[in-house]
């Protein structure tokens, strides 16, 4: 069974590497962006799916990584221009640092404080963009054109594919390690985990820092990919898109959220809006996505990856 899955994985990597040969550039651009979105979704799953702490402000770290990298690599903003790769890594580290402080304050308390505080974070960070308008560029953000790491669509595509594979491998390693087991122990029963000597706060904070780091890296990569940074990277619609993708795929599975991210992001940016326009309903695409999320949450709270795996295991 395992070898079949492995074979499938290798096949998928080969197919995605060969995609540029058959797919026109405009679609390639969208698919590359989807890979970066997938990193955001998987990193959310690393925290929420594995430790059971509901992070409602993951886009804070996407936006932070994006703004930090953009500021550091564009000389017109604050007079600094470091190498884009260094800027991307610093973006990830800055996000991890903020995650560390928020985590230390909220995760030592049991219960709902973490969700409440993270829910506010994106709104607060969005206001920073308007308060310090000349640094962050207000609602329009600013452009990093000319200072990006990537120039052609092809290089963008392969860069985001490589970044996705590296992040995926790293996060998979984390959850399969002893650390990952402790994350899951915290999720399944905090009391029990504590009673066998696991420092639950430490592991919750660790998961949050790792998850924020990958979100920051992904945010910084998104800026280098599309050349613009703006407050919508902090915003709640993106957050809900992340949640929907992960829940659809199945929390705590890494691969489920990956598939969910690809399906949802392509659906939203490819044909969902056209479909609504054709039906001429008084709704927008977000309403449809939120309704789907509520339906999945009630009818299939464990996501389709769990169901699929159970079906396969039953047959095997």
């Amino acid at each position, binding site marked *: 069974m395992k070898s079949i899955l492995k074979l499938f994985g290798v096949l998928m990597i080969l197919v995605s590497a060969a995609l540029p040969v058959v797919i026109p550039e405009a679609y390639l651009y969208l698919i590359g962006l989807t890979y970066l979105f997938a990193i955001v979704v998987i990193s959310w799953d690393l925290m929420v799916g594995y430790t059971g702490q509901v992070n409602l402000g993951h886009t804070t770290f996407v936006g932070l990584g994006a703004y930090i990298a953009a500021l550091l690599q564009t000389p017109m903003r604050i007079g600094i221009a470091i190498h884009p790769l260094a800027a991307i890594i610093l973006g990830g580290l800055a996000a991890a640092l903020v995650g560390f402080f928020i985590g230390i*304050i909220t995760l030592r308390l049991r219960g709902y404080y973490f969700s409440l505080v993270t829910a506010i974070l994106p709104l607060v960070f969005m206001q920073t963009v308007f308060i310090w308008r000349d640094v962050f560029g207000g609602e329009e953000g600013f452009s990093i054109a000319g200072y990006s790491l990537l120039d052609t669509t092809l290089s963008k595509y392969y860069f985001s594919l490589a970044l996705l594979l590296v992040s995926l491998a790293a996060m998979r390693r984390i959850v399969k390690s002893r650390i990952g087991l402790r994350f899951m122990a915290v999720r399944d029963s905090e009391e029990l985990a504590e009673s066998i000597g696991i420092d639950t706060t430490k592991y919750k904070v660790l998961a949050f820092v790792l998850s924020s780091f990958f979100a920051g890296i992904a945010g910084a990569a998104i800026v280098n990919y599309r050349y613009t940074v703006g407050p919508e990277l902090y915003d709640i619609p993106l957050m809900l898109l992340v949640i929907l993708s992960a829940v659809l795929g199945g929390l705590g599975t890494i691969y489920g959220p990956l598939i969910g991210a690809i399906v949802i992001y392509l659906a939203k940016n490819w044909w969902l809006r056209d479909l609504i326009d054709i039906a001429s309903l008084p709704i927008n695409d*977000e309403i449809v996505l*939120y309704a789907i999320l509520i339906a999945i949450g009630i009818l299939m709270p464990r996501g389709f990856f769990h169901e699929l795996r159970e079906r396969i295991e039953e047959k095997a």
Partner: protein
Amino acid sequence: MIDVLLKIIVFGTVVGGIWGLVASGFSLIFGVSRILNFAHGAAFVCAAYVAFLLSGSGFNVYLSILAGLAVSGLLGLLVYLLTRPVRKNEVMVIIITLALALLIQQILLVNFGDKGISMLPLVQGVVELNNVKVTNMRIASFVLAVTSLVSLDLMVSKTSIGKKIIATSQDSEAAMLIGIDVEKVFILVMVLSSILAGFAGILYAQIFAISPETSLKALIYAFAIVILGGLGSLRGSIVSSFIVGYILVLTITFLGARWSEFVMLLAIVTILVVRPTGLFGVEE
């Protein structure tokens, strides 16, 4: 100086009363059913929109307000129905109520735009207090809000329904064992709390403008209030809503409205560092 101070006290008290209505319901729902109702702000906004639209198209103002309150009550019922199948799954409860809140916000945005609405005040006129002008509507709002809060507190602490609510919030399984219909208590609390939020929304719309985005703002203030007062403590929420009201008015007066979310986060973080159980909370 004196009139600035007076202004802050007066407006902070009015604002605190209105947010107290939102936060006490949020706190009550959490205390009884352990559900973090992210859709609570939606009840606040929806009631105001319904009342505004109906009274705008010629219906009697008081009937329109009643209709708005009814809609917010129905919203509470909807939250109950949606969360019922997944109540044991904390992650999904949070996600579903948040999705519902944003769904409603988007529906309002698509149909009525983001411009914001405000209702004609029910009472006209202005009172002058040491050079500070206070509209009668603000005084009326404060009186109505405090009356509602006091009667809510009396209901919970004095009546037999209140005893059932307290029993359920302390231990819902034990409450079930002694014959309390816990589901009925859940429904009652969610509907009642949503109506209170709706009432706050209607009062708010007569003083300020309300837009679909206000629902998130209301939610943030409610968070700050319940964390300051202690999660699940009704009296704590009532007292801390006024504290938060003064902090808010201070922030808006001296720094500007953009800073209010910032200051709220700072307040929450400070409380969590210094006294995580809040002012009146009990250790879980």
